């Protein structure tokens, strides 16, 4: 008993100390000094200091910026700091069945957020490779799949991770949405999959009909108040037409890319083009329409998975073509199962003719702008979320390792 008392007292003391440190970590000021900082959207700074407190960046500067008094100083000599990477088209690990509501081909109101599991190993993998924010969308087996959301890659509750709900509505071109459907050719019709669309034409017909209904609903609401409200799906489509919800059209082959632009024109909504493997073939049209492109896995030589039959022919040089035409684009991992970690996709883009800063911007500040979140994430500046990565060297070097990944100022890296 006499021995037990002091030991337990010591233990309690140690626990208290640990608690105090933990509690103050949120408010403590931490300075990361002597680093090469690539702040996102701006040129690199050498011997720079990043000061973080309360989950936010409070200062960023060159060697002239001194760590505030009382700050925890972490010497980052030889290391490179970048903003946390943003994957604007990220495939979550949720099973395909749960990412696609197959009872209807047009389900604009379904939320991918409802199927998010914070312990999804893909979040963990992305986080370990420096990705701190992802834009997740429903699957690609529906013509209009539903609403995407933007999440930080760390948390225990999807509601805490989400930084933008209903961030986008996905429309899918090509063969995938019609894949599981069958045409009636006699015999017993014993499944809901005997339905339209079964062809590319049918897919576009479904898109057109959905937007036609939405337009009708818009006109009706204006004309006759007191009418029954349109269906939840149609309500989302009307918001797309009004520019309140961003449309993202997943299109890979040349013909699908052209169709995506044409349909958007026809109904007068703006759309981001997702995947866009054949973008180099339609670069002039994309530039002319001022389209924004989320280029899926530009390093991949082919489209793997169920979109293989879309007939897209990806080329490594697409990044350089888009850059030369002045098209706004971001680099994503997208739906291609052959995608590399996001940082390596940027690295390959550099190898294929994109400038290093532009490549890094395409996975940091550009996706932040595209998602409407550049006031919070995508670059390192006072007031922004303290989401950043400490790399062993320049992250575009193939040997670079994300040594430390921080979200809201807290380390989320795992031991290697």
């Amino acid at each position, binding site marked *: 008993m006499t021995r037990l008392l002091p030991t337990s007292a010591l233990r309690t003391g140690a626990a208290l100390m640990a608690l105090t440190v933990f509690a103050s970590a949120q408010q403590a000021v931490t300075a990361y000094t002597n680093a090469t900082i690539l702040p996102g959207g701006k040129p690199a700074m050498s011997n720079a200091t990043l000061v973080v407190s309360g989950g936010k960046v409070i200062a960023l500067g060159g060697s002239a910026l001194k760590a505030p008094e009382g700050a925890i100083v972490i010497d980052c000599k030889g290391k490179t700091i970048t903003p946390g990477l943003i994957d604007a088209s990220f495939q979550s690990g949720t099973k395909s069945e749960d*990412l696609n*509501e*197959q009872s209807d081909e047009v389900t604009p109101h379904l939320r*991918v957020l*409802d199927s998010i*599991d914070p312990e999804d190993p893909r979040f963990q993998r992305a986080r370990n490779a420096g990705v701190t924010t992802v834009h997740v969308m429903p699957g690609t087996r529906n013509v209009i799949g*539903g609403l995407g959301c933007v999440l930080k890659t760390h948390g225990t*509750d999807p509601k805490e991770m989400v930084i933008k709900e209903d961030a986008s509505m996905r429309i899918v071109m090509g063969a995938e949405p019609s894949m599981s459907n069958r045409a009636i050719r006699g015999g017993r019709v014993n499944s*809901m999959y005997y339905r339209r669309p079964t062809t590319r034409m049918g897919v576009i017909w479904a898109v057109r009909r959905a937007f036609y209904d939405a337009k009708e609903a818009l006109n009706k609401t204006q004309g006759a108040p007191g009418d029954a409200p349109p269906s939840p799906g149609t309500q989302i489509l009307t918001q797309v037409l009004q520019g309140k919800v961003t449309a993202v059209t997943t299109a890979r082959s040349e013909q699908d890319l052209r169709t995506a632009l044409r349909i958007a024109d026809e109904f007068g909504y703006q759309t981001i083009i997702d995947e866009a493997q054949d973008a180099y073939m339609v670069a002039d049209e994309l530039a002319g329409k001022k389209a924004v492109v989320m280029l899926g896995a530009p390093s991949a030589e082919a489209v793997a998975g169920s979109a293989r039959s879309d007939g897209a022919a990806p080329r490594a040089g697409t990044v350089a073509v888009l850059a030369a035409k002045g098209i706004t684009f971001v680099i994503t991992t997208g739906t291609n199962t052959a995608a590399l970690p996001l940082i390596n996709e940027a690295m390959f883009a550099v190898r294929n003719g994109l400038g290093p800063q532009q490549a890094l911007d395409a996975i940091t500040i550009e996706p932040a702008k595209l998602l409407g979140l550049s006031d919070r994430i995508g670059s390192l500046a006072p007031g922004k979320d303290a989401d950043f990565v400490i790399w062993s060297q320049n992250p575009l070097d193939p040997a670079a390792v994300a040594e430390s990944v921080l979200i809201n100022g807290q380390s989320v890296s795992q031991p290697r």
Partner: protein
Amino acid sequence: MQILNQNRTTGALLLTTLLAVPTAAQDVLVQASKIIVAYSTEAPNNMVLKDSALLIRNGKIAFVGADIPAEARRAARVIDYGNATISPGFVLAATTLGRDVDLGEGAIAFTPDLLTADAFDPWLEQLDTLAPAGVTSFGLVPSARNVAGGIGAVGKPGLEQGRLIAPEVFVGFSVSRSARNQERQPTSLMGAHQMLRESFTEARDGVKIGPDLAILRQVMSGQRPAFFYADTFAEINAVLDIGASFNFAPIILGGGQSERVIEKLAKRGAGIVLNTLSPMMRRADLELPAKLNKAGIPFCFAGRPDQLRLSAALAVRNGLSRSTASTALTRTPATMLGQQANVGALRTGCGADFVVFQGDFIDLSARHIATWVDGKLAHGASAKQAMKTRNTNLTGGR
């Protein structure tokens, strides 16, 4: 004449014998050295009577222990279980009695206004497995295949046939994998979530609503408990979100990954009906009951009736207190089913549903002597003997 007289005597004798045979209306006094009237999650709060008795009248507990009036005690048929222990019978919170086919309307996934009571067969063979496992009442739940399956009932087994004591009690929902059917809406979890969100919204805000949405309104007003099949993190999280949005505390059926949502479950006042445990399970699963209890989340078990005791024993071996484990087999499920006044305890007014064990039923070595349902012996080797004689010393007698 002589012959006639003789016949008359025989007749009178026969009549006397018939009268001596206890009738249904006669009180029964059940004695034992230990009677647990009700379990509590805190051991000292268990209501335990030593060398006491229960007086059963019309299938219910009429008096307990010292409250039994002397004249009723004298008039009653006495059953003495000697040094055995009498505890409340087990309550199986949710079962389909193996009749999933009849309890999941296949055509559409949203059928909250169907009644499982309509599919109840009192002669079902599965009912015969309940009393031998100590189960004296059960929740008849719709199958997990429909997002809103229907209204569940509460029933009891019997020596020959079972019966329902409350035909319309709780509502059975499901967002588990079996509710997501690739041949009808919804096929996905987000589809199931959306279906619930839209239906509850319409039930809350709609002016003219049908009988199906009226059921959801009863859930929101707390009139009916809501049971949701949900197993994975995303499924449980979806159910808790729906509960929070529409202001009710759900009861999760399954809840395999509930450890990951434990704080949220506690915050939302949700309960869990865990699947019965087995020794082959991962340690984390076996420790789950103790963790849920620590977080203040009410839980019980459902699944194979013959594994209820084993589940309680395994939970105790992995950190749960005996009294909480016993509560999880009796009072907790009774409360979840809203039947705490009728089953799960041996208080005055409750059904005379109890189990008799030689020792504590949490000890797997304790011998199960008998199960009584509605004041009648439903399982036990001495059934015939008990019914025949006025004073019976049964197995386990002093």
